[in-house]
């Protein structure tokens, strides 16, 4: 097919043999190793992020199978066991109604995390879509969308959430919606800023030069390259959403008693802080641990998603 012998490729390709026996076979369109597996592998090399992920996984498992793990029901009242300090029978102690705090913390995890995930999921989808459109199309699309986001941003977050809850009434679902609306502008801004940078990349113009449509450019080139800050923001927002749920429940607008929720338990335990510290301490620690882990995971993800770090770390830290 070729007239003259082809010059050999310029140099041996860096990274050859790194991929642990995945010698390149016949031409395929897919990379040798799926990207998400590579990301997980890189994450595992970062001790802080690895520990955070394991702890989060434990918390999520606890939350999903809360009925199995909780030794008692959330509202099993025992008048004789009121305000017991931590002991073998009640590792986290009991509250003023004799309910087991450990059970309530475990059962509250599912409420807190469900609200967190729902809220961030809503904000992620809505905010990313808005940010993508605003950043890519610019001009009036950008102006209109981002001014609306600015208006949402101008409200203090908790006040806006309270307003949403005041309209729709308290409860877990509405709490998630309220927090989701509050966080949408953050995702929109992060996405837009990221898209503005990626939009001007030569490879976007190159893709356009071969005839790719806007939709294809947005989904195949801009979103993947703009994603790292969004993923990091997701992890950090999960932390804040758990906090926000706690705050709203603390204010009596989120989860309603007697359902367990970390924020609500914190609020209820507040009055006994000098008498029985464990009422507020353990839900507080649960919030602290979850928020910390989401933040650490976010940091780890940011490093693992950086394509430049990829070769460095995949090459065994050369």
């Amino acid at each position: 097919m070729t007239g003259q012998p082809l010059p050999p490729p310029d140099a041996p390709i860096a990274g050859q043999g790194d991929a642990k026996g995945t010698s390149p076979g016949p031409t395929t369109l897919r990379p040798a190793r799926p990207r998400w597996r590579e990301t997980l592998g890189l994450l595992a090399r970062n001790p802080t992020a690895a520990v955070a992920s394991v702890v989060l996984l434990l918390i999520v498992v606890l939350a999903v199978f809360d009925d199995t793990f909780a030794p008692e029901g959330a509202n099993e009242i025992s008048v004789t066991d009121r305000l017991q300090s931590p002991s073998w029978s009640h590792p986290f102690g009991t509250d003023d109604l004799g309910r087991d705090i450990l059970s309530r913390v475990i059962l509250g995890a599912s409420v807190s995390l469900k609200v967190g995930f729902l809220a961030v999921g809503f904000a992620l989808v809505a905010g990313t879509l808005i940010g993508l459109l605003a950043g890519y199309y610019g001009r009036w699309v950008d102006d209109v969308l981002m001014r609306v986001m600015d208006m949402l941003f101008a409200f203090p977050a908790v006040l806006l959430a309270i307003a949403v809850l005041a309209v729709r009434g308290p409860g877990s679902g509405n709490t998630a919606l309220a927090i989701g609306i509050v966080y949408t502008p953050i995702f929109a801004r992060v996405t837009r800023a990221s898209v503005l940078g990626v939009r001007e990349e030569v490879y976007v113009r190159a893709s356009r030069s071969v005839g790719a449509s806007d939709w294809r450019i947005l989904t195949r080139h801009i979103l993947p390259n703009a994603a790292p800050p969004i993923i990091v923001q997701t992890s950090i927002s999960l932390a804040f959403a758990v906090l926000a749920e706690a705050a709203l429940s603390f204010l009596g607008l989120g989860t309603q008693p007697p359902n367990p929720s970390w924020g609500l338990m914190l609020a209820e335990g507040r009055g006994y802080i000098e008498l029985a510290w464990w009422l507020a301490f353990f839900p507080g620690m649960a919030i602290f641990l979850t928020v910390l882990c989401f933040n650490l995971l976010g940091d780890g993800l940011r490093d693992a998603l950086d394509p430049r770090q990829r070769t460095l770390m995949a090459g065994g830290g050369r």
Partner: protein
Amino acid sequence: MNAVTAVDASDVLVSVRGLEVHFPVRGEGIRKKGAGVLRAVDGVDLDILRGETLGLVGESGCGKSTLGNAVLRLIPPTGGSIDFAGTDVTSVGGKGLRELRRRAGMVFQDPFASLDPRRTVAQTVSEPLEVHGLRSGKRERAARVGELLELVGLDPAVAGRYPHEFSGGQRQRVGIARALAGEPDFLVCDEAIASLDVSVQAQVLNLLRRLQKQLGLTLLFISHDLSAVRHISDRIAVMYLGRIVEIGPASAVGSDPQMPYTQALLSAVPVPHPALERQRQRVVLRGDVPSPAAVPSGCRFRTRCPYVFEPCDDVDPALQPAGAPGQLAACHLHGVVGTPVERTPEGVPAEP
């Protein structure tokens, strides 16, 4: 102006007439509008013949890249017309635009920026195949990607790798493979070798030449590197401040330029021979290129031309035959031809 169309129309693949790309210049602060226009490309007539390599040279900022991008409609032209293979593509959209972009590819300057870092070589090269539905089925596309990689001198086995695993020269080969995937007739090489090492430049230049012969491509080779352009081109066009000021066969423009600007450009190319290099007469231009936001009246080169004389600020020179057959130059030294500058009663040149 018709001097440019001296060739048989059926041989012309790309025909550009009076092409203008003007960018609005935003003023500072409150006065955002009406601060003027930047004439990046300002009335270019150009015919690119089927199967030829046309070298386009000029200083940085003369509009040569803008011209190349405008021909592929990557930058919207503000005036003039572009014909591709007999079809007016100046304002086509949708299907027509997609077809233009299949039949005309582009190789970009910086191979480190022009490949999506999150997509494998195979994904990058197969994008045109997917966009234009040229190969149905994953296996057929993969096979085609392998062929394309082989065509540009890469091992098809590297298809699953990411761009950061490659050297600059290899990346540029990937970029060329992508540009060729749609089986184009026409390739715009926008400073395609400028960011490569000198040793790799020669390899990529020879690759482009081989591909051009092998696939019967028409090339628009944009570069500021005159020796590279002389090496690869059949014809050379010289651009200055948004206009083509000289065009002709590569041998003629490269050895006997008819426009003072081309003479100055050529005299700046070093000769790889010590004795000849010492004898080399240099035409050193005064000053800088004027801003394309404030183009001089008449001949736009007059502010720096060593031979400037009477009609230069009054008449905007048109391309006219000068020197060898097929060679055209926009210079009054070969006879005053062109559009007189309209003047207001005070003698100030009116805005064109």
